[in-house]
């Protein structure tokens, strides 16, 4: 045996035994500790089942209008497949500037006050990342869209969920968040018309909270993706209030109004300093929103208004149908004023939101999202999307009726259900 052989052998023996590879130990603690979306959890149960009527879908049941799809196809045929500028196609920013001027009478410079993002989701993330320092607090009125709290956390911020109430039609009132403001509070999230409650804020409602915003020098991040789906009266943006445009990052997109969820087009309007900061993050992460989707978006903004209105009228009819049927069943429901969700209370059944949703799914194969997926204050409610055909809505109502009747029958043998 030569020295060389020994040393080779020893090397093998003495090499430190690698620690058991535990990928979890390599995760960011922020991400590791972040609970998965309640929607996702529920989705995993649903996906295994057949013959499910879904009231769980947060997107239109219409395909994108054909002229929009066609504009994209035409552009692809022409080979339009390169990057756009980080800020987005100049043409798209220009038509958006015109449309926001027309809709809200707000003036934004397409050069440095508008950013095109990959869905509003990215815009929300960018807004937090561009403005929050570690430990900065953000007021998040709930129930709300599932991404705000995790996005604040990912940006190193501290989310401060505050509850809105059924008795106030889920509008945000000054007293709901006045007590949550401290010297670290930097921003307030607004998302009206609201997913999941269907609440809207009128000009007066917004004015009531504007004082607190100014007093505490807050930035407002306003996600108005459902603005076109406002049923009574006209949508009002927080940015329209006197002096509020500069403090507001106005987020919007085409997913809901133009039935373009899969295209991933969102946009942010705001002060050049904030939009500039968001653009910086965007250029290092996303580069630009998909070019073909931006081309389609130009067509949607320019010539899509008629379809948007036609879809809205259809949602409005379904809304009336669904809410009147819920009333008939005795499930108390605040009449949604925007978006395409109803948020009935199921507290009278004595079940938790998750129990109700799971049992309803298992017994009657109707999928509705438990309200607590949208924040603690959503407990006791379920979110039902009426962006589905009238036939399906009526079938779902029949099934819910049967479910409630069975619950009540069982109630006699112990499980209490009382109607509110």
């Amino acid at each position, binding site marked *: 045996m030569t020295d060389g052989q020994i040393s080779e052998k020893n090397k093998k023996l003495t090499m430190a035994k690698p620690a058991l590879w535990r990928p979890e130990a390599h995760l960011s603690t922020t991400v590791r500790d972040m609970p998965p*979306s309640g*929607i996702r959890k*529920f*989705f995993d149960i*649903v*996906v295994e089942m057949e013959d*499910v009527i*879904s009231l*769980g*879908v*947060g*997107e239109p*049941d219409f*395909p994108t209008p054909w002229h929009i799809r066609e504009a994209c196809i035409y552009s692809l045929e022409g080979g339009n497949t390169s990057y756009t500028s980080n800020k987005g196609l100049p043409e798209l920013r220009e038509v958006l500037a015109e449309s926001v001027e027309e809709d809200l009478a707000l003036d934004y410079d397409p050069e440095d006050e508008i950013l095109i993002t990959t869905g509003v989701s990215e815009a929300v993330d960018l807004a937090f990342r561009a403005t929050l320092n570690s430990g900065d607090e953000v007021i998040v009125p709930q129930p709300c*869209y*599932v*991404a705000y709290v995790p996005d604040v956390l990912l940006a190193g911020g501290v989310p401060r969920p505050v509850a809105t109430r059924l008795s106030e039609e889920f509008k945000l009132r000054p007293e709901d968040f006045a007590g949550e403001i401290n010297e670290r509070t930097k921003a307030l999230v607004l998302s009206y018309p609201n*997913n999941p409650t269907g609440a809207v804020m009128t000009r007066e409602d917004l004015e009531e909270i504007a004082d607190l915003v100014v007093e505490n020098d807050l930035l407002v991040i306003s996600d108005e993706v459902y603005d076109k789906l406002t049923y009574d009266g006209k949508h009002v943006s927080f940015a329209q209030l006197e002096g509020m445009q500069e403090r507001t990052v106005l987020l919007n997109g085409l997913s809901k109004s133009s039935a373009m*969820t899969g295209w991933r087009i969102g946009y942010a309007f705001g002060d050049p300093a904030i939009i500039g900061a968001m653009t910086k993050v965007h250029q290092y992460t996303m580069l630009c929103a998909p070019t073909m989707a931006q081309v389609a978006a130009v067509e949607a903004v320019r010539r899509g208004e008629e379809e948007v209105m036609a879809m809205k*009228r259809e949602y409005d*009819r*379904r809304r*009336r*149908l669904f809410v*009147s049927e819920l009333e008939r069943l005795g499930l108390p429901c605040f009449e949604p004023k925007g978006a395409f969700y109803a948020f009935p209370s199921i507290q009278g059944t004595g079940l938790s939101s998750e129990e109700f949703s799971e049992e309803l799914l298992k017994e009657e194969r109707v*999928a509705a*999202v438990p309200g607590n997926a949208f924040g603690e204050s959503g407990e006791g409610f379920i979110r039902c999307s009426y962006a589905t055909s*009238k036939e399906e809505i009526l079938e779902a109502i029949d099934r819910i009726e049967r479910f409630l009747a069975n619950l009540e029958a069982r109630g006699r043998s112990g499980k209490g259900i009382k109607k509110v």
Partner: protein
Amino acid sequence: MRDFAKEILEVLEENARATPGEIATLLGRSEEEVSGEIKGLEESGVIRKYMTMINWEKIDDGYVYAIVELKVSLHRDKGYDAIAERIARFSEVQSVRLISGDHDISFTVRGKSMKDVAFFVTEKIATLKGVESTCTHFVLKSYKEHGVILYDRAQPKRLVVTA
């Protein structure tokens, strides 16, 4: 705000079987209001008929359809209306239109066979006073009628639960 009548018509155009009660729910009005409005629309002739949109090809009805275009010459006492109305009276004829372009009048006709349709056109239409020429196009396949797509195509599925 859109006209109440227009909203009703939009619902009925989509579903002729919608009852006044159902329409009332959809539009947030009372059943009486809806019934009254519909009655008015029927009486004024805005609503002509409640029909069912049928894809006859699916049950092989054995009918043959043709689009026929006409050139007509006008006379002092006989305008387009007179000829068009005359053609419209034939039960074989399903629609009649005054059109711009190379021809003047276009109509669709339904018959039991190509021969049937061809004879109808040559015997009943070509011989009408004022009809100068006819051009018959037999329909081979219909893809869309009255705004309804007739071909079956798998629809993309939405995820069952999304944010």
